[in-house]
């Protein structure tokens, strides 16, 4: 492909990727199988797909920033009239940052932790412009102001860790925009951010696209983001761009079944589950979990971090209670406190009328059959050295369920089938399974001891959208079948409607609001709930 395609006439400030192919150098496995797309000034092109579909590789390959293990085998990338793949590396360095800028997913790790953010932005300018000294500093401060960083003068000397996640991402944007590039590649710019901040950052990118006439490639796995920001959409699936369309067309009439599935994963705020009227199973009354803060010469306890600060709620039989809040709000700690894995500093926990919080390790044993848990990360919640069968059997063994080996085996097979896995999987090891499958194993493990209440601690947040739906569906199904209750801990409001009967919203260790799912999602009372809700990307059912 050394011959330049003369007929492609590109307008300035646009980037075109043609037939890009990338392989794994060692194995020859194809990662990208001929991807082509064009960006246009003032427009946002959203590249969507699940993890591993090749979105990020596309962006990195076009900038020639692939890790050593990957290799570009074919394709061209035109910036204006120039094929970037033909430039010597030395010239390529002038393109990066100057004409094409990039924003990466996790700003915290993408920023150099030991340089001040001001220096980092200044470095880009130093590399590509003649600005020096005070003028340089002034330009950085201006940029900070432009991307909405408060007190830009002072923030210049801050280190990344001293800024909040949103501000870090703003710094990344400032850094990208510093040399007024023609093209901006944003790789999952909002993924690691809390929903409320996500919204602000996306809005900023959108504004800048227009004000600066940038050509933007936005890489994301979140359809809500696409809906809100993009002009054009490309769907990637296993290294190929399977669908391209204008954003409205795409959401109205997706051509591919895969695209359809992606869109369907968006929450539907129209339908809610009716709360049941059963008797309370678990009652929390003013529960507090405090972690001591030690300071001074003798490490005296001078204060407490109030991780859970007086939470009262009740969960009824056969009900799903969703506990919503951003990271650090104390949701998971509360879950652990219910499991008696964390000592409580005040209040009481009653399960079927019995108080749990006073029990010691042995006293708790009988209750462990009743209350079970599913963790966020399925990979770390399975011992990699035990087979799936052993993992499921462990709880049964220690809690004395199915003492007979033969019957235990049968029960494991049955459970695996129930969570839609093969019975033969019992002899396999965790690493042979995907995340979704493992989470099913985790469900089977919890079910194995016939619990009444399962605490689900963000069980789907590590999963891709399409799989997430399947797992949630399975949970709902099991609830119908066994009448088990869930305490569903999540930061993602979008999954709540289809799942929860009732919802509690946590902020800074306090339960700021609770009610039925419908009440909370349609008529939130607390400002924090309102803010959370406003930032949830939804699909208007128009």
């Amino acid at each position, binding site marked *: 492909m050394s011959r330049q395609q003369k007929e492609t006439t590109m307008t300035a400030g646009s980037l075109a990727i043609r037939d890009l192919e990338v392989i794994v150098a060692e194995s020859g496995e194809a990662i990208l199988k001929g991807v082509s797309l064009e960006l246009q000034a003032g427009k946002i092109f959203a590249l969507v797909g699940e993890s591993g579909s090749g979105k990020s590789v596309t962006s990195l390959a076009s900038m*020639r920033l692939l890790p050593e293990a990957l290799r*570009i*085998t074919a394709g061209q990338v035109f910036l204006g009239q120039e094929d970037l793949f*033909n*430039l*010597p*590396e030395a010239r390529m360095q002038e393109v990066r940052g100057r004409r094409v800028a990039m924003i990466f997913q996790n700003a915290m790790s993408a920023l150099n932790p030991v340089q001040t953010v001001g220096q980092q932005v200044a470095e880009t300018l130093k590399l590509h412009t003649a600005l020096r000294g005070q003028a340089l500093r002034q330009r950085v401060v201006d940029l900070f102001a432009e991307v909405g960083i408060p007190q830009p003068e002072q923030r210049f000397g801050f280190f990344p860790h001293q800024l909040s996640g949103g501000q870090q991402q703003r710094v990344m944007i400032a850094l990208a925009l510093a040399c007024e590039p023609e093209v901006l590649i944003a790789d999952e710019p909002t993924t690691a951010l809390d929903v409320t901040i996500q919204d602000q950052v996306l809005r900023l990118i959108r504004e800048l696209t227009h004000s600066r006439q940038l050509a933007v490639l936005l890489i994301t796995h979140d359809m809500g983001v696409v809906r809100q920001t993009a002009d054009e959409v490309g769907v990637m699936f296993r290294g190929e761009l399977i669908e391209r369309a204008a954003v409205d067309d795409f959401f109205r009439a997706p051509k591919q079944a895969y695209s359809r599935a992606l869109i369907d994963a968006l929450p539907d705020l129209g339908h809610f589950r009716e709360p049941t009227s059963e008797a309370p199973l678990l009652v929390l009354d003013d529960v507090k979990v405090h972690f001591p803060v030690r300071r001074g010469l003798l490490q005296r306890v001078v204060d407490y971090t109030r991780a859970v600060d007086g939470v009262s709620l009740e969960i009824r039989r056969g009900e799903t209670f969703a506990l919503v809040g951003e990271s650090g709000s104390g949701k998971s700690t509360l879950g652990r406190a219910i499991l008696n894995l964390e000592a409580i500093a005040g209040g009481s926990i009653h399960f079927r009328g019995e108080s749990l919080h006073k029990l010691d390790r042995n006293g708790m044993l009988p209750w462990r059959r009743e209350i079970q848990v599913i963790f966020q990360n399925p990979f770390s919640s399975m011992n990699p050295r035990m087979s799936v069968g052993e993992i499921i059997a462990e709880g049964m063994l220690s809690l004395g369920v199915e003492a007979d080996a033969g019957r235990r085996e049968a029960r494991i097979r049955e459970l695996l089938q129930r969570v839609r896995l093969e019975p033969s999987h019992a002899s396999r090891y965790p690493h042979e399974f995907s995340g979704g499958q493992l989470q099913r194993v985790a469900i089977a493990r919890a079910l194995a001891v016939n619990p009444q209440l399962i605490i689900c601690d963000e069980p789907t947040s590590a999963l891709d959208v399409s799989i997430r739906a399947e797992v949630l569906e399975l949970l709902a199904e099991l609830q119908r079948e066994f009448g088990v209750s869930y305490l569903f801990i999540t930061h993602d409001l979008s999954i709540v409607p289809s799942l929860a009967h009732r919802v509690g919203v946590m902020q800074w260790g306090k339960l700021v609001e609770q009610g039925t799912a419908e009440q909370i999602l349609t008529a939130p009372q607390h400002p924090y709930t309102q803010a959370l809700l406003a930032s949830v990307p939804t699909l208007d059912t128009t």
Partner: protein
Amino acid sequence: MDLTSVARRAWVAPLLLGLALTGCGKGPWNNPHPPPVDDGITYQSMFTPAPPKHLDPAVSYASDESLFLMQIYEPPMGYHFLKRPYELIPLGAEDFPEVEYLNADGVVIDPSQGEVAFTRYTLTLREDAHYQPHPAFARDDSGDPLYRFDDPEKGRRYRQIGDFPETGSRPVRAEDYVYAIKRLADPYLGSPMLGFMGQYIVGMREFSEQVQTAERGQWLDLDTFDMRGLQVLDERRYRITIHGRYPQFVYWLAMHFFAPIPREVDRFFHNPGFADRNLTLDWWPVGSGPFMMVKNDPNSEIVLERNPNFRADFYPTEGAPGDAEAGLLADAGKRLPMIDRAVFRLEKEVLSLWTKFLQGYYDRSGETHGNTNGVFDQAFVVGPDGVELSEELAGHGITITPDVKPGIYYYGFNMRDPVLGGYSEERRKLRRALQIAFDTEEYLNIFYKGNGIPAHSPIPPGIPGHVEGEAGINPYVYDWVDGEARRKPIEEARRLLAEAGYPNGRHAETGEPLRIFMDVQSQAISNTSMNWIRRAFERIGVQVEYRPADWNRTREKLLTGNTQIYSHGWLADYPDPENFLFLLYSPESPLICECDGANNSSYERPEYDELFRRMRVLPPGPEREALVARMVEMYREDAVWLYAYYPKDIYLNNPWVHNNKRHGISKNTLKYVRIDDAMRQQKRVAWNQPVTWPLYAGGGLVVALLLPGVLAYRRRLRATARLRG
């Protein structure tokens, strides 16, 4: 950032190094000595492998320490530098001591007439002996000692002897000698002489007990106590009285224990706080000898300088036969010492010590180490025609001066051992078989490169009683063949073994193999030599087991007799057969005297003991020689020791060092040394031309390593994303 500039810098580094090296000087690059401070002639030598522990003449009892002490202190007596056999000469004393014998009532008698209860020695000092300049002698205007502090703060700024601006001196007086002997008796000092001399010097034990109980303040003036056997007659004369007769006592007067210590020096070092800065007599000797210590850094060097107050002393005008031919009398009659300064540096590693000597940076090697510590054994071989030097050494003109040390190293049998000990004929044969099997000549050749002489008797050469030639051989182990002693053949050993009841090394009745146990000091013997000994005995079918232990443990075994074959060595204090034959005297056995005796074999033969008692008090002469010969014969007959050898001490001298005759006993020979400085300079330059190509090669290597990096970086900057081809 340009890689090529980095590369250029790396280029330069070795060149700079080279320049720096050449820039530093006139002399060779590898000169380990600092530039000379003045025009004086400096003798450069080393001490190895460890610094001296004690330099207090009352405490020190090690040959590496007396190397320094004997240059600084002058005891009353000394040895003639050149004459052999060793001859006593007066040193600090004007003449030999006057000896008088007294009976129990203290009346002077003729020893042949009556029972001698005491012997009295009267010594007269030289007139011109003066102490070295030292701050202890410095006095202020009122005549009081200048440096006497009552408060540690006042003396805090003085850390070395050189830090004191004022010094003084004074003549040596008889009271100083007496004071020194009193110090020997001070239990607080822990002198090794206290126990030994206490048996002889009258009143020493009582003195010691008295001092023991005395209140000790900052300093205890020993002159406030009297020792009955000591009298100061006047400024230049003093008297020592000893119990009974001990003719060898006069030899002790040649040791540093009896060198004078001025009372004010002892007082000086007891200034408050001085000890905390190592300002002690144990660290800074003060004497009247030819040299004085100006620097004592035991971690790196000890520097002696000519004592400006040294008495008029001259190079001897006569020597032993052959000395004149060897050029040893060329300096006859010259004023001593002939060097201005002697620097001794600490050397711990053989490779560097030897290299520096070969490069000419040490004038003489072998000063503080004999062949016993394995330092020299790699360098040269002593053959029958003398030393066989390698070609390189021969070209350097290095000379060698050996001298047989009046000492003996041996592996002894425990005569009380149930298997090997005893005095029956069978046991004698058994031991003789082992003696024959142990090929001492071969052992010395291999492991000591010939620096030792197989011993036929306990008395080494140079000591009266040692017999050379056919008459001197041990006929039980050797035959006299073709004018030389030849070890009896191994068949003889087998035969003796069979006669002793162990045919082929197996017990005649049970068939059990004979297994002998050797207690060796783990530091003193190498695995190679242990293997060699094992193989030597394997030839007659005897099995060897080693029980290595450190010195403390070995000593315990010796004291309790819990040993079968042990290793031991004895270096004589004075050149008299008594000092060797007592090794077999039964009251010296640790098991009999329950003390730290020297007869570790526990050899007990009443006849021997009787002969020894007689021999001890006899003056030298044919009568004494006959007694000695008989005792030696008994030693041979009873085969008390497995093997023994007389170690040789060796100086290796670079060609510019003169008057190198090695003295087996006396260490105060440094004053005789003469250095040809011009020759030294010239040879050092000639021998130490640096080889510079490795510098350039090293530089080239760095460039060669950098170059691919630079090239690859250039290539990477030019690369596109297209695969080539």
